[in-house]
């Protein structure tokens, strides 16, 4: 790793700090923004996310090697961290730092896209079911029951293992489409309880359209669990990808994902622990940051707090 790479990493960190400060400044005028940053973990979490996103986007600047480049397979495999390879090299003598950075693109991308698919589907289905109840609810919830009755990992494994060559895009879509059942149940439960409150009953009594009631009155009040489940969801997807890769059915070699980096490093845990440790730390850190942001958002967006 040369001076320019280090400088670029420093630049990314500064940029991430600026992002945090800027968000803070722009939202400071609103009560919700102040509540968000009152959480002790909120600012560090935003920083972590901003840093990883920046570094991932600027990957060629912050890394000395291409992610699949094998530096010297005979002499530089399983090399511990050094100034040249700050996170060491893996069994194939690839630079772990470079793979980690390029892996961020893949892992974060998969997490974000799949989560988006999952939460959108979950919110729509849960909202509709909880609001309309009766046969709509019954039908949708039976569908959810079927979905929940198929363990997610099991189903994904089945498709990926039995159908040869499943493209990554399809895999991501499948992860998303198998991830909304829980969210929809939470949303429905929340909608069911919010629905009973006076202001929703009042809105309905005033003759508001169902769609309007759902989106204007019910969903904002159910926002907290949706956001918490979205934050957990994106993390869950990253963990799921790691799990699939661990079983050899995730992102195919040689593309780096944090999941397949752990999987590749796993057999060498005894001699080269850095190969699996750093990507694992990266996942944990990002998922933790997402969860912290979710928590902070949950408090910040809770409308009942406005009056409290």
């Amino acid at each position, binding site marked *: 790793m040369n001076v320019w790479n280090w400088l670029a990493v420093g630049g990314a960190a500064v940029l991430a700090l600026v992002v945090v400060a800027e968000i803070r400044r722009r939202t400071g005028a609103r009560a919700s923004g102040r509540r968000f940053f009152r959480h*002790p*973990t909120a600012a560090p979490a935003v920083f972590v996310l901003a840093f990883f996103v920046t570094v991932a986007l600027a990957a060629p600047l912050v890394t000395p090697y291409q992610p699949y480049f094998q530096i010297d397979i005979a002499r530089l495999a399983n090399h511990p961290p050094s100034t040249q390879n700050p996170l060491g090299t893996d069994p194939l003598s690839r630079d772990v730092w470079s793979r980690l950075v390029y892996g961020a693109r893949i892992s974060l991308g998969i997490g974000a896209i799949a989560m988006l698919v999952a939460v959108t589907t979950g919110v729509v289905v849960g909202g509709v079911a909880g609001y309309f109840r009766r046969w709509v609810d019954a039908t949708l919830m*039976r569908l959810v*029951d*079927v979905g*929940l*009755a*198929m*363990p*997610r*990992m*099991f*189903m994904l*494994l*089945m*498709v990926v*293992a*039995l*159908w*040869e060559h499943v493209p990554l895009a399809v895999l991501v879509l499948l992860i998303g489409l198998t991830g909304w059942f*829980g969210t929809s*149940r*939470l949303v429905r*439960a929340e909608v*069911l*309880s919010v629905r*009973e409150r006076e202001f929703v009953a009042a809105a309905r009594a005033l003759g508001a359209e169902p769609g309007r009631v759902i989106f204007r009155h019910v969903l904002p009040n159910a926002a*907290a*669990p949706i956001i*918490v489940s979205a934050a*957990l969801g994106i*993390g869950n997807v990253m*963990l799921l990808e*790691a*799990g699939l890769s*661990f*079983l050899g059915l995730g992102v195919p070699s040689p593309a780096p994902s944090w*999941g397949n980096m*752990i999987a590749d490093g*796993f057999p060498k*845990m*005894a001699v080269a622990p850095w190969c*699996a*440790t750093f990507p*694992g730390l990266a*996942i*944990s*850190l990002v*998922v*933790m940051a997402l*969860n*912290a942001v979710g*928590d902070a958002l*949950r408090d910040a967006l809770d409308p*009942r707090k406005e009056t*409290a």
Partner: protein
Amino acid sequence: MAAWLVRRLAASIAIVWAVVTLTFLIVHLAHGSPCGQPDGLPVSPAICADLTRRFGLDKPISTQYYKYLGALLHGDLGWSIALQRPVAAALAEALPNTFALALTALILDFALGVALGVYQAARERRFGDIALGNVALFVNSMPTFWLVLCPQVHAFSCVADFAWHLTLPALTLGLVGAAGTARYQRAAMLEVVRQDFVRTARAKGLRERRVLLRHALRNALLPLITLFGLTFPFLLTGAVLVETVFAWPGMGRLAVTAILQRDYPIVTAAALVASVMVVLGNLLADALYGVADPRIRVRAT
């Protein structure tokens, strides 16, 4: 109540049927032949044809499906291609192991999770809450199998080691679960605590402990019951990675091995078992819902 139960049972059977059908389709639309031998020996064409006939793979998929359902109704789960033994026997071996693991983990998960959640809610924003919150957050954020990389993997043989070998996977599953449960529980408690009836209870001059445990907790258990409905089946079949890493001979590992080896009869049977468990878990969760929230009991009928 009886009518409710009958309706739920009917729905449950429908769910199991749907899952089995879906699995059957996914499995049978994939490539595959029963002629792959685990040892890679060439199989003579005569034997291959014989195997194909024996597993009925030469028939159209609809015929195979009806035959499978028919056998299923008679309690026949089929014959495992890879294990060369009845599927039922393989399941009978794996299920108790999984139950032991799931039960231990479940107890740890909910006991610890609820206790932590309530404690954190009571100490909201104070040191105990924040510290525990961050620890739970971190544990909840790790890939489960990565968490167990550090204590090196031990598989087991004799039943003598059963209790000891149960400890690590159960701890892993239980702790990770508890971290999540605590987060939900804390959020739910705080939600409830702000509601009017709790304020009323406080205003009446009830002691804080009584307010929290008697009034708030009971209401805050609602979302937890949903979580229970989700966790139960996860522990039974979704503990795939933990079972694989710890070489725990339970349902999860059996299912994964079967999928990877394309042992279709086991795959379908595992999906069947999984769905039955989930359905039972849901029934239980719904019954608990009714107990915990009288408003829902009225509506459910």
